[in-house]
């Protein structure tokens, strides 16, 4: 059976790619017996969901988009240096 360290890596990879059937089964078997690893996977999933949500969240003070003013300024600089 996988230990928790191995499980944590597999849990993380399950967020990036589809695990093989074999890996998936081993992950499930460990999770069924281990509360801490179940919690860990839930929290990783939460973090990924949170980040995805923020990517869409525009027009807050936390806007992850280049502000319009900066955009203007940078375009002017690009034009000047071409």
């Amino acid at each position: 059976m996988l230990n928790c360290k191995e499980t944590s890596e597999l849990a993380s990879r399950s967020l990036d790619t589809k695990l093989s059937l074999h890996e998936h089964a081993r992950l499930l078997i460990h999770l069924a017996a281990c509360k801490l690893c179940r919690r860990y996977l839930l929290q990783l999933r939460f973090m990924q969901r949170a980040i995805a949500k923020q990517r869409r969240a525009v027009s807050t003070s936390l806007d992850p988009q280049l502000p319009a003013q900066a955009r203007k300024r940078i375009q002017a600089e690009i034009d000047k240096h071409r």
Partner: protein
Amino acid sequence: MTTQIDPDRWLAEYGDFLYRYALFKLGNAALAEDLTQETFLAALKARERFSGRSTERTWLTGILKHKIVDHLRRSGRETALEDGLSDSASLDAFFDNHGHWLSEHQAWNNPDQSLEQEKFWHAFRDCIAHLPPKLADLYILREINGVSSEEACKIVDISTTNNMWVMLSRARMRLRRCLESNWFAKAAGE
């Protein structure tokens, strides 16, 4: 097929992408704007050297990455170059010799409620900015900028997809712990 450089499209196509990368890496919007601008100007100067072997975006991101490293070095924030796969970045601090968790992490209470709170996002960003440099690069590119595994490996200079998974796992392990101590543990104590 030859790859053409087209500065007319740069800002529209890569402005947000580069800005976001710098913003999360540095945690400072004004600085992120400046470095985004510097990146475009440096790219204009170096346009003859663009080989077309990578995409324009990968190339521009590489330039920005160097600008960020220079900045961090000048401001004394970045010390040793951390490759993200060395022992110091490993999971050893989280597990005992048998691979069991060293400490019991607690369940997070109503995490989705946190998403509505601006302070939560500051905590999250802060935790990302304080990851080991290469892990931060990779995490931001994959999770925030949504680039493919292939492009992420190219930009961050990771040799295999397997190494990338290992590094992402280490980044998430650290982020989780940081979020717990900087946000969830505090919220529970209030």
